[in-house]
């Protein structure tokens, strides 16, 4: 890709600069804005957060190096353990179920049905809605007198189902699952589009050959469709993991970590430590731990399901 010099004549320029040199300079100039911004706000920021995590930075004081104290404090903090547990549980359940749901929705829509465009668009609508609005809506839906309880009582009242305050009931432990359900339902349709695009790339002949061999129904799904979709499944799992490990908006707005920290996630804890309690160094150490977790999970997933180059697809 980079080396395609052959066949392109070097046209001398009046400026005296040779064309290759001019091309290289222009290249740096065009990529320049990204380089400058990311050197400051991405790479510089990452180095800075790494440095801060070894200091006693609160908010405006001159940072002083104090070694690994912050890491020791974070790793022995019981609240951090709870947040880590909640975050990993949340990410595992959400990533798994949303990938599965996205795949099933895509396979459903890939069949010859009427109104395909209608269903695809309707299902996608929550994905253009901000998490702020989704949160405001679902706080109302999940109330004890909310529409979810009304529907459930109407359908399952005969089993003795009683309305639950989904987001605030301590004993019922429903807050985290409720947050998971909202994320799954609102994110799966995005990934459904990825799967739909990939399904349309599977040649019809593959299915014809499979049906000659007697592969139909679930067998065909698991032995033909899923393996053919492997690169895209990898992509969806990786993006889903990275996204769900960072869950913040919905948690902050719907439960703010409650009840009794049942929904406190790492990102919520980082936000609180840094921007409410002004413990920047402590929050930096947590941030760096989160980054390491995301990076190592990516490497593990790459090993397990990924082929090379799938992310660059």
């Amino acid at each position, binding site marked *: 890709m980079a080396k395609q010099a052959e066949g392109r004549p070097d046209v001398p320029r009046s400026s005296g600069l040779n064309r290759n040199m001019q091309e290289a300079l222009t290249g740096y100039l065009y990529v320049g804005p990204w380089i400058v911004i990311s050197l400051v706000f991405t790479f510089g920021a990452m180095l800075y957060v790494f440095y*801060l995590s070894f200091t006693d930075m609160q908010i405006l004081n001159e940072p002083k190096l104090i070694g690994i104290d912050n890491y020791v404090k974070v790793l022995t903090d019981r609240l951090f353990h709870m947040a880590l547990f909640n975050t990993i549980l949340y990410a595992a359940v959400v990533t798994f179920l949303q990938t599965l749901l996205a795949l099933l929705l895509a396979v459903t829509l890939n069949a010859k049905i009427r109104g395909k465009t209608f269903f695809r668009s309707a299902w996608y609508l929550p994905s253009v809605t901000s998490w702020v609005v989704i949160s405001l809506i679902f706080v109302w839906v999940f109330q004890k007198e*909310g529409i979810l309880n009304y529907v459930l009582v109407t359908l399952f009242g005969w089993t003795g189902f009683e309305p639950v305050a989904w987001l605030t009931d301590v004993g019922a432990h429903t807050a985290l699952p409720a947050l998971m359900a909202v994320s799954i339902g609102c994110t799966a349709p995005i990934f459904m589009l990825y799967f739909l695009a990939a399904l349309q790339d599977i040649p019809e002949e593959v299915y014809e050959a499979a049906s000659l061999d007697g592969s139909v129904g679930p067998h065909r799904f698991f032995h033909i469709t899923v393996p053919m979709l492997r690169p895209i499944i990898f992509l969806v799992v990786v993006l889903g993991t990275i996204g769900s490990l960072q869950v913040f908006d919905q948690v902050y707005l719907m439960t703010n970590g409650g009840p009794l920290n049942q929904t406190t996630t790492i990102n919520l804890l980082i936000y609180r430590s840094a921007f409410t309690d002004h413990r920047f160094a402590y929050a930096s150490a947590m941030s760096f731990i989160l980054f390491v977790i995301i990076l190592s999970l990516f490497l593990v997933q790459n090993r397990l399901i990924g082929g090379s180059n799938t992310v660059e697809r």
Partner: protein
Amino acid sequence: MPPTTTTQRSETVISARKTSIERKGPRYYTVLVLRYVSLLLVTVILIGPFVMAFLSSFKTTQEVLAWPPTLLPQVWRLQNYAEVWNALADANGNSYFPRWVLNSLILSGGVTLAHLFFCSIAAYAFTRLRFPGKRFIFAAMLSTLMIPSMVMMIPQYQILNSLHLVDTFGAILIPNLVSASMIFLLTQFFRTIPRELDEAAYIDGASIFTTFWRVILPLARPALATMALLSFQGMWNNYLGPLVLLNTPEMFPLTVGLGFLKGQYSTFYNVVLAGSMFNTIPMVLLFVFFSRFYVQGVTYSGIK
């Protein structure tokens, strides 16, 4: 999860159809009905809450919390929208809500324009120009997609604070002038444009910029439209950045404003839901009118 079981059923329904399609007996019609019933059920589960929220934004404060809930408002109370528009005001009596809408438009519009220019020239350089270290820079760019945004909030806050930019639009706009994911999306599209076209222009003596401006950009219009829609929507719906970097209510975009409103109006769900519609309906309209570009965005990348 209820949606999972429903779709599982419709999946088997679909494969069952293949065998019965030739003879349209009663079984064919049963399967047909079952399939559409399950599709509708999935639709109700996925967007029912949103439709209910829209309808409830016209109800009275009592009706929005009524048990049993009503589907359609007994009286369509359009005043909810006027009420939220004037809900909160600053010391001089100027309403915040219109400011928030305007701020959201300025920030999203600004980011979109910046992306249209900076991301497209960068994508052009990555796909068409030869310069040392290109592969490395591209790989570095892709790797930044893995860095959690919260991790960068702390240092970004410190950096922007030392530049005296916190609580100004600059704090939001400057770090977002270019986006790695949008550059990536455009490179995926630029690679599909035949090289012969720009090489012909090149040989005719057109400068690098002219080639980009007159040959590549006109051909890339669909990809640019996709990118513009995604950039606009991304900033319009962004919450964390403005939450951290903007402090005074006059500076809030609508998302942060709505969170603020919820704190003040927590018992007036009808008003809060009406406010939410100001955030949601523009995005829904963009999606309805330009949905093919959203679908295209997925084809060219794999990034939201």
